[in-house]
C-alpha cells in the first residue's frame, strides 16, 4: 500500500507536465465534451410531485390512483374567513360569503365558453350558505341548501339559523367555528385527479361556422361512434385485464400548476367587495405550494446567487487574485452544468434534490480548487517557479483530492441501496458530479493556471509576505501537540455535553412549520387547527370487493366504532371524521321528523338501503364523495390538526392497526375486504419519514464505507480509527445544537449530514496525506504536524471559510429548514476545521500515530525544510 501511494503521488506529480505537453488536445477534448454534454441541458426536467418518489407500479401509488379514480382529488382549499364585524351570521358577512361563493361557482358566465381558465380546477364550492341540508316537516321532506337564496332578514331569523347550524352534527368545525367568528368555504378541486388528455377545444368564437365545423371534425376524429356497440351484459368478468391498461394516468401536479391557479384565485380574495366584510385565510396544498413558488424558491435563488457572490468575495480576500477567484468558480459551475447536462441526456427526471447536488459540487469543487491554488501559492512562496510549484502541489494534494472526491462519491453512491427512485438518482448523479469536479480540477485546472496564474509565472515570491491566516496558523500549530491532553479532555467534555443535548433530537418533518412563523399560511393553519376541525385530512379507502356491501349495517357499525375510537384516543389531534355513517344517521333522523334519538345507523338491512336511497336521490353528488356508485368502496376522512411526522407516523400506523383488527372479522362475509389508509397526507407522512430514515441509514453506511476505505488507503487501523473522531465531531455538534434548540431532523436538515461528512473527511484526508508525507520526508510527529498545519491547514482554513460564509447566507431564507440547514452547516464546517487543527494533532501526539515510522529508518528522498 505504501508503495502504491507513492506511485499515485508520482502519477499526480506528472499530471501538470503531461497536460501541458498535450495542452491543445486536452483543451480541444474539454471543449468538445462541453458542447456535447451541455446540449443535454435542454432535456433536463425537474419533477416536484409526490408521485415522482414512487415507482409506477408501487402498490401505495396504485391505491392512491384507485382512490382518486373513485372519489376524485383529495385536495381541497379550505378558505377560512373571519367576519370583520365578529359575526359570520351578520347580514354583511352572509351577503359577502354568498357573493364570493357565487363568483367562484359562476365565473364561467363572465368569460367566453372556449377560453380555458385556471378556475376550471374548482369542482365544487360549499359554505354555510349552500351546505346540504335535509329535514322533514310533516309529510314534506326538505332537501335543500341550509340558507340558500333567501338570506335571513331579521335578527331573530339569523339567531335561529345560528342555533340550527351550531346544533347540526357536521357544520361546526367544517363551515363555522363555535364562536361563529370564523367560517369556511370548502373548495373541492381536481388537483392531481384529472387526466392529461382532457383538452379544452379552443375556438375563436362559438358563432364562427368555420370553427364549428372544425369542432365537428374533432368529434369525428376521436372515433366513429356509429360502429361502437354498447354491451352492458357481457364481458365484465375480465375486469382486471381490462382495467390494467385503463388505470387513469392522472396529471402530475407540478408546483407551477398551483401557482397558475393561485394567480387567478388570489385576486378574487382581494376584491374590496369581500375584504370589506371578511378576512380570508386560505388553507390547503395550493396556497402552501404557491407560497413555495412565489416566496421560498425565489428567495432561494437570490440566496444561492448571493452565496456564490459571497464566496467569490471571500476567495478574493483570501487570495487577492482575480485568477484564483475565477478558476474555482469556473470549475464548480462547469461541473454542475455537466451534471445537469448528463441528467438531461440520461432522460432521468430530477427532483428538488438537484439543489443538494449543487451544494455538494460547490463544497467539493471549491475545496479541490482551493487546495491546489493554496498549495500552489504556498510553494511559490517557497521560491519555487511556476512549473515546479504545479508539480509539487499535485504531488502533495493530488492524492488527497482524489481520495476526498472518491470517498465522498462512494458515500453518495451508497444511496443506490435506497429503494426510492429519486434518492437513488440523486446518489448516482451527485457521485458523478463530485468526480467530474475532481477530474476538471486535476486535468484542466493546471492548464487554466498556465493560462492565467494568480501570481505572474516568472515572479519569485519572497518569504516576507506571509498571509495573515498563515500567521494565525503558526500561532496555533503547536497547541495540538503541546497541550495534547488538555485538547482531548476539552473535546471529550464538549462531545459528552453535545451528545446529551442531542439525545432528545427528533426525526420530524412538518411542512407547515418550515414556513415563516408570521406568514399568512401559518396563521391560517393555526386558525384551522384551533377554531375548526383541523388543517389536514387523512383518507381511508374501504374496498369491500363486492357491490352493495356498504348498505350492510355491519360494515357501517364498524366504521362508527372506528370513529369513536379516534375521538376517544386522539381528542387533541382529531377534529372530525366524515363518512357514510354521518349520512346514514342524518338521513334516518330526517325521515323521523328530526327526532334526535334517531340519529343512529338503522340496523335493518332494507331500512338502511332505503335510507341511503333517499339521500342518493336528494344529493347524488355528495353521496359520491362517500361511497362508490355500486356501494363497494367507501371513504372515511379524518380531519386532524397539523403536526409533524413525529406525531403523524405513529398515528397513521395506529389507525391502520385499528382498522385491521376492526374489520378482520368482517372478512368472513367480505373475503376481499381491504381497508387502507391513502390520500396525499398519509402518503406524504410515510414518504417523509421513509426518506429521513433512509438518509440516516445510508449516511451511516457511507460513514462506515469511508472509514474502511481510509483504513485501507493509509494502511493503518490506528490512524483510520483516530481519523474517525474529528469527522464525527461536527455531526455530534450539529445534532447537539439541534437537540438543544429543539430543531427537528427533517428531510432538509438531514442533508447537513452528507455535506459535513463530505467536507470534514476531505479536511482530514488532506491533513493525513500531508502529515504522512511529512513523516515520510523524515520529520518527527511534531514537525509533521507543523508542516501539515501550515500547508494543508492553510487550504483547509480557506475552504472552510469560503464554504461556511457561503452557507451562512441561508440565514435569510424564508424556509425555516433551509435557514437551519445553512446556519448549522456553516457552524459545523468551522468546527470541522478547529477539530482538524487541534484535536487531530492531539490524538496523533497522544497515540504516537506515525505510520510506523519509529519502526523503520526509512527517510524519503525529498526533503522539506521546516523551521522549528
Amino acid at each position, binding site marked *: 500500500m505504501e508503495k502504491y501511494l507513492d506511485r499515485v503521488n508520482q502519477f499526480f506529480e506528472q499530471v501538470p507536465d503531461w497536460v501541458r505537453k498535450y495542452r491543445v488536445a486536452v483543451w480541444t477534448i474539454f471543449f468538445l465534451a462541453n458542447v456535447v454534454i451541455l446540449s443535454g441541458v435542454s432535456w433536463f426536467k425537474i419533477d416536484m410531485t409526490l408521485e415522482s418518489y414512487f415507482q409506477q407500479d408501487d402498490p401505495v401509488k396504485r391505491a392512491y390512483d384507485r382512490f382518486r379514480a373513485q372519489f376524485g382529488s383529495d385536495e381541497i382549499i379550505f378558505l377560512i374567513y373571519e367576519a370583520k364585524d365578529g359575526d359570520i351570521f351578520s347580514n354583511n358577512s352572509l351577503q359577502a360569503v354568498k357573493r364570493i361563493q357565487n363568483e367562484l361557482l359562476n365565473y364561467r358566465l363572465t368569460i367566453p365558453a372556449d377560453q380555458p381558465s385556471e378556475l376550471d380546477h374548482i369542482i365544487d364550492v360549499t359554505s354555510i350558505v349552500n351546505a346540504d341540508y335535509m329535514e322533514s316537516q310533516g309529510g314534506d321532506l326538505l332537501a335543500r341548501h341550509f340558507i340558500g337564496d333567501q338570506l335571513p332578514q331579521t335578527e331573530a331569523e339569523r339567531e335561529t339559523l345560528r342555533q340550527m347550524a351550531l346544533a347540526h352534527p357536521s357544520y361546526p368545525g367544517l363551515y363555522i367555528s363555535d364562536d361563529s367568528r370564523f367560517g369556511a368555504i370548502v373548495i373541492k378541486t381536481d388537483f392531481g385527479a384529472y387526466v392529461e388528455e382532457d383538452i379544452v377545444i379552443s375556438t375563436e368564437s362559438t358563432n364562427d361556422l368555420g370553427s364549428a*365545423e372544425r369542432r365537428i371534425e374533432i368529434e369525428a376524429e376521436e372515433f366513429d361512434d356509429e360502429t361502437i356497440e354498447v354491451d352492458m351484459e357481457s364481458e365484465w368478468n375480465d375486469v382486471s385485464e381490462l382495467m390494467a391498461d385503463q388505470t387513469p394516468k392522472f396529471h402530475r401536479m407540478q408546483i407551477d400548476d398551483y401557482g397558475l391557479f393561485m394567480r387567478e384565485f388570489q385576486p378574487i380574495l382581494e376584491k374590496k367587495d369581500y375584504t370589506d366584510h371578511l378576512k380570508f385565510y386560505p388553507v390547503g396544498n395550493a396556497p402552501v405550494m404557491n407560497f413555495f413558488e412565489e416566496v421560498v424558491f425565489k428567495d432561494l435563488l437570490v440566496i444561492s446567487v448571493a452565496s456564490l457572490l459571497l464566496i467569490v468575495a471571500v476567495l478574493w480576500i483570501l487570495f487577492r487574485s482575480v485568477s484564483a477567484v475565477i478558476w474555482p468558480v469556473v470549475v464548480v459551475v462547469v461541473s454542475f452544468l455537466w451534471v445537469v447536462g448528463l441528467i438531461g441526456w440520461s432522460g432521468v427526471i430530477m427532483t428538488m434534490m438537484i439543489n443538494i447536488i449543487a451544494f455538494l459540487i460547490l463544497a467539493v469543487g471549491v475545496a479541490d480548487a482551493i487546495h491546489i491554488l493554496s498549495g500552489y501559492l504556498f510553494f511559490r512562496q517557497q521560491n519555487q517557479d511556476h512549473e515546479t510549484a504545479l508539480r509539487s502541489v499535485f504531488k502533495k494534494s493530488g492524492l488527497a483530492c482524489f481520495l476526498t472526491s472518491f470517498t465522498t462519491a462512494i458515500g453518495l453512491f451508497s444511496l443506490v441501496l435506497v429503494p426510492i427512485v429519486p434518492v437513488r438518482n440523486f446518489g448516482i448523479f451527485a457521485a458523478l458530479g463530485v468526480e467530474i469536479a475532481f477530474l476538471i480540477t486535476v486535468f484542466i485546472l493546471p492548464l487554466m493556471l498556465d493560462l492565467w496564474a494568480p501570481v505572474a509565472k516568472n515572479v519569485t515570491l519572497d518569504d516576507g509576505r506571509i498571509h495573515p491566516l498563515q500567521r494565525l496558523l503558526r500561532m496555533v500549530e503547536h497547541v495540538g501537540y503541546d497541550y495534547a491532553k488538555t485538547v482531548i479532555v476539552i473535546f471529550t467534555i464538549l462531545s459528552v455535553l453535545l451528545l446529551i443535548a442531542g439525545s432528545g433530537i427528533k426525526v420530524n418533518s412538518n411542512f407547515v412549520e418550515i414556513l415563516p412563523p408570521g406568514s399568512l399560511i401559518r396563521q391560517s393553519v393555526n386558525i384551522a387547527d384551533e377554531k375548526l376541525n383541523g388543517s389536514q385530512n387523512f383518507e381511508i379507502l374501504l374496498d369491500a370487493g363486492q357491490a352493495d356491501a356498504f348498505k350492510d349495517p355491519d360494515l357501517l357499525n364498524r366504521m362508527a366504532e372506528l370513529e369513536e375510537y379516534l375521538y376517544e384516543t386522539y381528542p387533541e389531534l382529531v377534529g372530525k371524521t366524515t363518512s357514510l355513517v354521518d349520512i346514514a344517521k342524518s338521513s334516518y333522523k330526517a325521515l323521523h321528523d328530526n327526532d334526535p334519538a334517531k340519529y343512529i345507523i338503522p340496523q335493518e338491512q332494507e331500512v338502511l338501503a332505503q335510507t341511503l336511497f333517499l339521500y342518493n336521490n336528494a344529493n347524488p353528488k355528495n353521496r359520491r364523495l362517500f361511497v362508490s356508485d355500486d356501494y363497494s368502496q367507501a371513504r372515511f376522512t379524518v380531519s386532524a390538526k397539523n403536526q409533524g411526522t413525529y406525531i403523524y407516523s405513529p398515528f397513521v400506523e395506529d389507525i391502520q392497526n385499528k382498522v385491521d383488527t376492526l374489520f378482520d372479522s368482517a372478512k368472513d362475509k367480505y373475503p376481499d375486504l381491504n381497508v387502507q389508509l391513502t390520500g396525499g397526507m398519509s402518503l406524504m407522512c410515510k414518504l417523509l419519514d421513509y426518506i429521513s430514515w433512509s438518509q440516516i441509514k445510508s449516511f451511516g453506511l457511507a460513514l462506515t464505507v469511508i472509514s474502511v476505505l481510509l483504513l485501507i488507503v493509509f494502511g493503518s487501523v490506528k490512524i483510520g480509527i483516530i481519523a474517525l473522531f474529528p469527522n464525527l465531531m461536527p455531526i455530534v455538534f450539529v445534532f447537539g445544537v439541534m437537540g438543544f434548540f429543539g430543531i427537528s431532523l427533517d428531510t432538509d436538515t438531514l442533508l447537513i449530514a452528507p455535506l459535513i461528512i463530505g467536507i470534514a473527511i476531505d479536511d482530514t484526508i488532506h491533513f493525513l496525506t500531508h502529515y504522512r508525507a511529512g513523516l515520510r520526508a523524515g520529520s518527527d510527529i511534531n514537525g509533521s504536524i507543523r508542516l501539515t498545519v501550515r500547508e494543508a491547514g492553510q487550504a483547509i482554513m480557506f475552504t472552510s471559510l469560503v464554504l461556511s460564509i457561503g452557507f451562512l447566507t441561508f440565514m435569510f431564507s424564508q424556509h425555516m429548514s433551509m435557514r437551519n440547514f445553512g446556519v448549522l452547516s456553516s457552524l459545523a464546517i468551522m468546527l470541522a476545521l478547529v477539530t482538524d487543527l487541534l484535536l487531530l494533532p492531539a490524538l496523533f501526539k497522544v497515540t504516537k500515530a506515525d505510520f510506523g515510522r519509529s519502526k523503520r529508518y526509512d527517510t524519503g528522498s525529498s526533503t522539506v525544510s521546516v523551521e522549528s
Partner: protein
Amino acid sequence: MKGRLFILTIMAAITVATAGTDKAMANSTDLDARTIMQRAFDRDDGRTQVSAQKLSTCRYAMKGKNLVCAEKPRVKKFESIKKDYGPNEKDTRSVSILVEPPAERGIGFLQYDYEDENKDADQWMYLSAFGKVKRIVSGNENEPKEGSFFGSEFGYEDMERPHLDDYTYQLLKEEEVYQGRPCWVVESLPTPKQARKSNYSRSISWIDKERLLTLKSIVYNRQGKRAKRITMRKVKQIDGVWVAMQVNVNNLISKRMSTIKFSHIAINVDVDDSFLTLRTLTDGAFRERHMKTYRNTLQ
C-alpha cells in the same frame, strides 16, 4: 330533486350554457335552427306510455370496437306509466315503481311536471321499508340541478323537457348522415339566465330530419369540456310513434355509462287518471290491480 324524473323518452335536445350568445340571434341560420328544434320539441311522443324499463350502469372500457362494462353493471328495473295533460299535452304525470334490486323493491315515485316554466314540478317518494310517503321539496331554482336518475349517469337535467326560449340555436351542418339517417346538426347555447341553472355550457344534437328524433347529443360541461355523449339506438315505430328502445349516456369524464332499455312498451293505451295519484304509491293492492291491466297491453 327538482327533476322531472321520468320523461325518459324525450331527451329531445340536451341543454346547455354560456355567455356570448347574443350574436347568435343575429345570424341568418339562427331562425332555421330554431324551427328545427321547435319541431323536434313538438314531435308526437304519444299521449300515454306504459313501459317496463331496465337501467344499467357501469364503468366502461373499450374492447376492440365495443364499449363494454369493466365491472358488474348495477341494474335497476322499474315499471313506469305516464300520461300527458294540459292544453298542449305538455304537462305530464308519471308513476314509477322499482322492481329490482330487492332491497329497493316497492320504492315509488309520483311526479307532476308542468309546461309552465314558472311552476315547480311536484314529486313524492314512497319508501316501502318505512311505509311512508314524503313530498320532496327542494331548494334553489337558480342553481344547476344536482340529482341523477337512480344514481345513474343520466342527470335530472338530461331528462328534462327543455324550454325552447332558454336557448339560442345554430345549424352547424345541414347534410349529415348518422346511423344511416339524414340529420341536421344543431348547436344549442343557453341564454345567460339559463346558463346559471345549467350544468352544461353547450350542446350539439344530431336530429333525424324525417322522424325528428334526436339520435345523438354531445354536451359540454361548465368548464367547456365534452362531458357526455347521449345516443339513441334501436328506433322502432310503436303505434305511430317513433321510439328509441335503447338510450345510452356515456360520461366522457368519469368513463361511466348508463343504458336504459325498454323491455316492454305500449303507447296511447288508456290510463286511468286515478292511477296517477298518491294512492298508487301507498296502496299495493290498488296498484297491482291496475298494473295487471296495463301489463297486458305491453308488447
